[in-house]
């Protein structure tokens, strides 16, 4: 706003006031060679200056031919140019793609932030640079309003769950579309084995990122049409500027990590005592040998044995700059992280070359290359068979180590003879080697042809290619010869985009930007998996050395998309804004006659503060805007519409097929109609800036996969039916509390509310009513309720007279049984309020930043307690210390039922295992010190001390409220089963720029 005012000022007063010494003239153009009118051309350190004319030409007088000129224009990087004796200049201004205050990246282009009519949130590289995050999503937690990010698990390679403006789909994927430098990524670069999917973006170095823009409303997303209804995340990587001297940036940090919370489990003696009690309570003490001698039990703390102090180091080096004919960024990065579980860790090597060349006056070309190589030493992350899960339920009353201090490789029995098989939580790590290597190349190529003044044609080809190799070896244990597997997966995805862009300004009064384009993309994933056994020796690593093949599998995904799109942005007098966009989009995933969909959007804005009548002095910028439009979702399996039988079965050496789905050639797009109203403001000379949005996002014709009676031979039916509404407010504030020479204090806040409600569901049984359905036996989908409401029997505690677990029936009376017919809605899995805030202080050379993020209003179901660790010793599994409080005649007033061996007493699914999951977490704390005495502005040396995940306030009963067991695409979230809690990391870093 200040800038606009300044421009106006200059326009009015730019008459040569100083004595003419030397006259300098020239033309200012943009990188597409179009003349730029309205550029402020100013003599450095002087008040004198002019504005370029409609043809981009300027002329001004300078004091000497060795002065420096400063060129500034809204939306472009300010450019300083020493005259060095020249009197005529050809100046090129760089669009300020990485200057977020000025311009933001939008779909297929950039836009001046102040002229935006859509709901867009963006962050710059500061969010990623000094934060120890293996993947970019983790650094984004709590940074953007309306963008809720949850960790799949705490391991470095775990998935992240992104939800933009709630959950719009029940059965199709809810993850947003992710686009990097114009290349639409598939999200398929991860690998699924060991019970979970690894993060598809592990190969992407967060340090390469210049900005992340999240497109939220229809005005912003409709240009991505049919894949945009979950929102779009645009990642722009770092690049240099034309005519910029080389700048080198070095950043290194190193530190250690630890588990943020451990489980409180029974020790050997406590376990034996509770076991005996449980056996006695069910009369099983008469079984010979079943009771333990509690005075002589070994004691093993399995968590102790599998946890370690993790280590992390990351090095980023980059050089950026440019000449009149090119610009570049060349970077290299290395990350080495050892997790807090022994033997696990990742190593990532990545390079980046982003460069752009002026080939001729009208032609520019560029190439962006990002090869990376990631080695993931992994293990199961979030299930009962994972080491962390196993450590939680395995016998504590056995000896873990042999005489040499190694984990025992034979069958280990408790003193009463209860045996596992050979293998334990320690051998699952130490006796196995699982190495997943991903070689990825992200590349794009573009050619830009300035056909006429303001008219450009651009063609872009982007390729995502990755190769995954996973070698796993399980070394021999008693009774098991060595086994192993090899997984190979190849991903190839290309986008080809052709754009025509036309920009026209009429005397700073009308501005029109028109984009027309076409895009095709094809994604192809092929993989195979072979598992083998019978290795002669543990030294042998590869499957060729095994005696036999145990299992083999292969998979292939293939999808094609084609779309035609257009966008027009018009502004009148820089205060009345109008936007129009549309995309006609097709996908191979749908039935032949349902492939194409049309997704239009309309938006408008009014910059009130530009009006003459607006005279509120404190408000220097005020804009209202609104949008409405349609986007779609096609994120279902590639061949759902066309395939019903699957060729996997094998029997007795013959191969066969199996019917797995019903005919559904009528399947088409899931559509999302979204309305958005927003307000943007800036007060007191930008001291307080912010925005407020309200949205209503209605998804209809859901790609709804409803459970059907399994007696029909299939368990689900997918069809376009049903509707969901998400609505909420989003607030974003930046407040510069103090700005003094030696001290500054800034506060940023963002928060979003979410109200989610199902409007309509399928009526499969034809009774005229929407059919409710329940997923995972407790997540209810019912018209009028939020997606994923918890549907459980209410736990009523323990009968003090006999230790029976009690439950409420629907009339509120207590009973000892928990039939499903007594289930009721007891909470929701979607947070109602999410966001984050940060405080930044600077005092002389010191700076301090604290970033918090929070989610509230939701609950999580602790499957790990329900199935394993809080079942009051109903089986052989180890229990949490809480279970020592089980009912006894001496301890009648408790909420833990009587321990009863091999008997369900209170471990039926109920609210006993449902926990509030609200939390606020100190995500990132960083203290920096900048060395004084640097010679030039951009030269500096800064040391910093950072900590991640230092503190969490939560009533949650599990380990980490910010984790999720079910896969990221699902809408039936809200559970944990042995998720690794997020690591707490402490790092010391050094950042040098020169």
């Amino acid at each position, binding site marked *: 706003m200040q800038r606009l005012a300044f421009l106006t000022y200059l326009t009015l007063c730019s008459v040569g006031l100083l004595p003419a010494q030397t006259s300098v003239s020239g033309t200012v153009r943009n990188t597409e060679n179009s003349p730029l009118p309205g550029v402020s051309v100013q003599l450095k350190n002087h008040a004198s200056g002019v504005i370029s004319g409609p043809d981009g030409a300027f002329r001004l007088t300078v004091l000497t031919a060795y002065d420096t000129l400063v060129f500034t224009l809204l939306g472009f990087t300010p450019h300083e140019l020493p005259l060095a004796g020249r009197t005529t200049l050809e100046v090129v201004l760089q669009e300020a793609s990485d200057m977020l205050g000025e311009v933001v990246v939008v779909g297929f282009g950039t836009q001046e932030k102040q002229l935006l009519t859509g709901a867009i949130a963006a962050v710059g590289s500061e969010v990623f640079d000094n934060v120890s995050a293996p993947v970019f999503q983790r650094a984004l937690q709590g940074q953007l309003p309306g963008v809720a990010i949850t960790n799949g698990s705490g391991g470095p390679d775990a998935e992240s769950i992104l939800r933009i403006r709630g959950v719009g789909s029940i059965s199709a994927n809810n993850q947003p579309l992710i686009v990097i430098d114009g290349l639409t990524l598939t999200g398929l670069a991860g690998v699924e084995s060991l019970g979970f999917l690894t993060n598809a973006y592990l190969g992407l170095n967060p340090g390469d990122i210049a900005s992340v823009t999240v497109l939220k409303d229809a005005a912003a997303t409709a240009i991505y049409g049919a894949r945009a209804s979950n929102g779009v995340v645009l990642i722009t990587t770092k690049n240099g500027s034309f005519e910029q001297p080389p700048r080198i940036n070095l950043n290194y940090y190193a530190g250690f990590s630890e588990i943020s919370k451990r489980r409180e489990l029974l020790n050997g003696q406590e376990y034996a005592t509770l076991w005996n009690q449980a056996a006695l309570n069910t009369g099983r003490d008469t079984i010979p040998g079943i009771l333990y001698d509690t005075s002589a039990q070994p004691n093993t703390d399995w968590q102790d044995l599998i946890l370690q102090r993790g280590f992390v180091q990351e090095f980023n080096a980059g050089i950026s700059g440019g000449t009149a004919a090119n610009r570049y960024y060349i970077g290299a990065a290395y990350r080495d992280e050892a997790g807090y579980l022994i033997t696990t860790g990742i190593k990532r090597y990545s390079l980046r070359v982003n460069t752009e060349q002026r080939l001729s006056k009208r032609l520019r070309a560029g190439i962006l290359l990002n090869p990376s190589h990631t080695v993931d030493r992994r293990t199961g992350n979030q299930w009962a068979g994972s080491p962390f899960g196993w450590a939680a339920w395995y016998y504590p009353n056995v000896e873990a180590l042999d005489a040499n201090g190694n984990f025992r490789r034979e069958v280990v029995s408790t003193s009463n003879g209860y045996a596992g098989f050979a293998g334990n939580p320690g051998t699952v790590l130490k006796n196995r080697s699982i190495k997943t290597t991903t070689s990825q190349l992200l590349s794009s190529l573009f050619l830009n042809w300035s056909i006429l003044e303001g008219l450009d044609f651009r063609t872009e080809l982007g390729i995502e290619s990755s190769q995954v190799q996973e070698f796993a070896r399980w070394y021999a244990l008693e009774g098991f010869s060595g086994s192993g597997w090899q997984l190979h997966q190849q991903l190839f995805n290309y986008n080809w985009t052709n754009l025509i862009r036309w920009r026209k300004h009429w005397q700073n009064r009308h501005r029109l930007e028109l984009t027309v384009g076409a895009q095709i993309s094809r994604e192809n994933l092929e993989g195979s998996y072979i598992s083998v056994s019978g290795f002669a020796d543990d030294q042998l690593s590869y499957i060729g050395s095994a005696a036999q093949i145990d299992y083999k599998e292969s998979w292939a995904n293939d999808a094609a998309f084609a779309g035609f799109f257009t966008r027009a942005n018009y502004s009148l007098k820089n205060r009345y804004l109008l936007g129009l966009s549309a995309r006609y989009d097709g996908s191979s995933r749908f039935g032949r006659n349902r492939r194409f969909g049309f997704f239009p959007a309309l938006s408008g804005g009014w910059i009130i503060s530009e009006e003459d009548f607006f005279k509120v002095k404190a408000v220097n910028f005020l804009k209202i805007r609104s949008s409405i439009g349609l986007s779609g979702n096609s994120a279902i399996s590639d061949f759902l519409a066309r395939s019903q039988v699957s060729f996997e079965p094998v029997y007795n050496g013959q191969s066969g097929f199996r019917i797995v789905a019903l005919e559904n050639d009528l399947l088409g797009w899931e559509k999302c109609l979204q309305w958005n109203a927003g307000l943007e403001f800036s007060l007191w000379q930008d001291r307080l800036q912010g925005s407020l949005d309200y949205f209503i996002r209605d998804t209809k014709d859901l790609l709804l996969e409803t459970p059907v009676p399994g007696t029909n*031979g299939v368990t689900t039916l997918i069809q376009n039916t049903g509707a969901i509404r998400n609505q909420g407010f989003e607030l974003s504030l930046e407040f510069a509390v103090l700005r003094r020479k030696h001290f500054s204090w800034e506060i940023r806040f963002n928060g979003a509310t979410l109200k989610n409600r199902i409007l309509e569901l399928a009526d499969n049984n034809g009774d005229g009513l929407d059919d409710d359905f329940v997923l995972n036996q407790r997540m209810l989908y019912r018209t009028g309720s939020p997606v994923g409401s918890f549907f459980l029997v209410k736990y009523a505690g323990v009968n003090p007279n006999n230790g029976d677990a009690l439950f409420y029936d629907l009339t509120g009376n207590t009973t000892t049984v928990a039939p499903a017919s007594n289930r009721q809605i007891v909470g929701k899995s979607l947070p109602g309020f999410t966001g984050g805030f940060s405080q930044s202080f600077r005092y002389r050379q010191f700076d301090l930043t604290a970033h918090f993020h929070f989610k509230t209003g939701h609950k999580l179901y602790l499957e790990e307690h329900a199935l394993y660790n809080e079942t009051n010793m109903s089986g052989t599994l180890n229990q949490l210390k809480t279970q020592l409080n089980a009912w006894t005649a001496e301890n009648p007033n408790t909420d833990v039922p009587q321990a009863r061996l091999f008997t369900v007493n209170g471990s039926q699914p109920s609210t006993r295992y449902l926990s509030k999951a609200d939390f606020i977490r100190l995500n990132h704390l960083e203290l920096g010190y900048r060395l004084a005495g640097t010679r030039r502005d951009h030269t500096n040396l800064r040391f910093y001390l950072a900590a991640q995940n230092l503190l969490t306030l939560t009533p949650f009963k599990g380990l980490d409220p910010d984790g999720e067991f079910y896969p990221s695409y699902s809408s039936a979230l809200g559970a944990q089963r042995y998720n690794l809690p997020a690591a707490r990391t402490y790092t010391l870093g050094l950042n040098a720029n020169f």
Partner: protein
Amino acid sequence: MSTIHQRALLLAILACCMFGCSKFLDDPQSSTSLPVEAAFQNGQDLEEALTGVYDLCQDGHLYGRNFIVLPELIGGNAVFYGGGFFGLEYVSALNMTATDWYAENSWLTAYAAINQLNAVLAFLPGIRNSDAALSNSQANRIEGEALFLRGLLYFDLVRLFALPIGLNAGQQPGVPLMLNPVLKKEDFQFPEQASVVKVYEQINRDLAAALPLLPEYNSTGRPGQHAARAFLARMAFQEGRYSDAASYTEAMLSSAFDLTDSPQDFFTTEGNTEEIWTLPCSPEDPNGGLSTVFGLGGGNQTFATADYLQAQQEIISPAQQNALGQAGYTAVDLRTDTGYLVTHPLLVQDGVVGWRTNKFEQVQEESDDIPMVRFAEILLLRAEALARLQGSNTESVELLNRVRRRAIRVVDAGKQLVPGGAGFIEYKTGDFPDANSLIEAIIRERRIELAFEGNFFHDQMRLQRPVQGLGYDTCRLRLPIPQRELDVNPNLKQHSCYQ
């Protein structure tokens, strides 16, 4: 180039891109799946569909684990104290809930198999006419196998999910009967449970219709006529139709099947003479957990119950015991010998806690074949049927002795086989003054001979005898109707104890 030309070129580029698109979207084709109508084109396709069903049968949710393990646990031959198969301890303790994972998966998998069989049966008549390469005998065999498998699946479903047919004349709810394929939404049904007797009528129709269509001896892993007779006999037993059972089994006595030399051989030798029908498994094509649940070192505490171990002791009658004692000989039952004579015991000790079966011991590879029906059972079925029809009779006694001679060895103190020692453990007609005493001896023999193969529970149900100390009609002896099914199908009824 003039601007007009430039624009024209641009438009041409865009136009090319657009016209290419509809074709472009056709290009991706699945390489692992097909639409139903494309999958059922000819006789070979029907074979592949059947193979898919056999593969499901081999799955852990059906015969590869649950249909054998669950009745053994519920029936009280075996007890599960914990391990990798979480939740089996509740099945074992008759403490299941309606959300029981084992019951749900068995239900869903069985009906998936049934739907595919229905599809085979529905497509077969058309393909018989259209596919010249499909011979009549091959088409008959396909139809026979499909009918047989459907009958078999309903037989196991109804015995596990419903009350026994002997109760209330079978009028209580059985399981839903699905006899037509569901291939599109319009085919959907929300069926209620057919009565137990209706389900049995359907099983009888399917098996009886399958019998003449099947070859007498089928290829490996496939049921032939004798397998159909065996299951018809088993079903007749459940219904108390003993003369039918006697005639089905009579036809099998002259077949090529015979007992193996020792009880071990059946479990250690593939393709032996006793296999009437077995589902072959291999490391590449494993059973779904049968070996891991029962086997030693599989991480599951599955032990023989005290009740079963007691029953082993009663195999040699007191009179036989007496005679052996006087002669200074010992009778060793190879089925329960833990290493005195045999190198491959069928019962092994696990720690200090107990004993477990060793019939399925390939815990790493899960490659133990799944025994569906074997000749020893046929001998015992016929023996009991005749005893019920004729009272104490020589043929029954001889059939019973045939099984005992194979299983029990008489040795002297030096572990040497006693010539003619079989005489000590064989029964004589005179040992059985009435039908009942003979029948009891046969039932005792069945429990030991067929232990851990999924038999005992069903025997107790047909005999209306208690298991785990509970009356045979006790609700908790049934698998719960899966809650997921009740959630989506209001026409189903849950057993009272799971409500």
